């Protein structure tokens, strides 16, 4: 169980809903992963269209919590307005705040992110800021009113996994009591287990599951990896040593010479 902002979540895996081969596979993947939070977005509806209704109906049938995002927003104004529209449609004050600063890397514009976070926190939102692993930016986001942080571990959709473990360790150490969800760049279940072993509270991923050859199987694998990483963190892992240490007791061994 995971206590987050006064809510008890059965799973520490957050799952995105984009890029699946079909709505049925999305639904099966969500179920197989055990996730209790899915991310969604808002896009332009065609005149007379019902695409949004179909998708919204599917999402509601999953029975999970919803975390809307502001994906694709490149300015503070865009992100703030999108967040307000999402709150009206989805009926939640949770918002995954993205203010993108670079078209190629999809790196967050951390200056705009802090500004937008302050506006939204003051307006009653629970802001989940998609940010880098920069400690100073994290401090500014907390000062702006954020109660959670979502540091990336690699560029969105890259599947690189944690490219800077030192920075992630440092974040965990500096903000021991802030719920932190590693978001973006995870490619394999072992990546998820690695960041959970560092003590992060949860992970959010999408592409690694949706674009797998078998999204349902991969969703299940990520669910297990997140649980394994968390349990390992809680169980006290052995620190690496530079010397060999026999695991079999040496006392009482036979001598044949």
């Amino acid at each position, binding site marked *: 169980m995971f206590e987050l902002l006064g809510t008890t979540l059965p799973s520490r895996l957050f799952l*995105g*809903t*984009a*890029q*699946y081969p079909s709505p049925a596979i*999305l639904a099966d993947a969500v179920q197989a992963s055990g996730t209790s939070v899915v*991310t*969604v*977005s*808002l*896009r*332009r*509806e*065609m*005149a*007379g*269209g*019902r*695409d*949004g*209704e179909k*998708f*919204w109906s599917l*999402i509601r049938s999953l029975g999970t919590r919803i975390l*809307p*995002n502001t*994906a694709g927003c490149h300015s503070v*104004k*865009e992100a703030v*307005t*999108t967040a*307000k*529209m*999402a709150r*009206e*449609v*989805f009926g939640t004050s949770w918002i995954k705040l993205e203010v993108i600063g670079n078209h190629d890397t999809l790196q967050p514009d951390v200056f705009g992110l802090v500004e937008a976070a302050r506006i939204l926190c003051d307006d009653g939102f629970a802001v989940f800021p998609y940010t880098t692993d920069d400690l100073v930016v994290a401090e500014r986001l907390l000062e702006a009113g954020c109660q959670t942080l979502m540091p990336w571990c690699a560029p*969105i*959709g890259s599947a690189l996994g944690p490219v800077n473990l030192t920075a992630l360790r440092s974040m965990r150490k500096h903000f021991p009591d802030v719920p932190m969800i590693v978001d973006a760049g995870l490619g394999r279940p072992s990546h998820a287990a690695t960041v959970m072993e560092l003590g992060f509270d949860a992970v959010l991923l*999408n*592409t690694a599951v949706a674009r797998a050859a078998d999204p349902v199987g991969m969703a299940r694998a990520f669910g297990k990896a997140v649980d394994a990483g968390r349990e390992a963190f809680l169980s006290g892992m052995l620190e690496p040593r530079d010397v060999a240490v026999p695991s079999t007791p040496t006392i009482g061994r036979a001598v044949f010479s």
Partner: protein
Amino acid sequence: MKLIVNGQALEIDASTLAELLAALDYEGDWLATAVNSDLVHKTKRAEFQLSDGDRIEILSPMAGG
């Protein structure tokens, strides 16, 4: 009236946002609207007067990561 709806220029006879949605056959409580980059709550659409050149965004739920 000349309006820009979801990025497309339209010439349409609608004085309020609610009239515009009806004229374009938009219907449903899953829709969110903004005019000139500001949210217009669904409860305010009937009284929200449109002006020539207004930019309207009509959004609905979509998959996201």
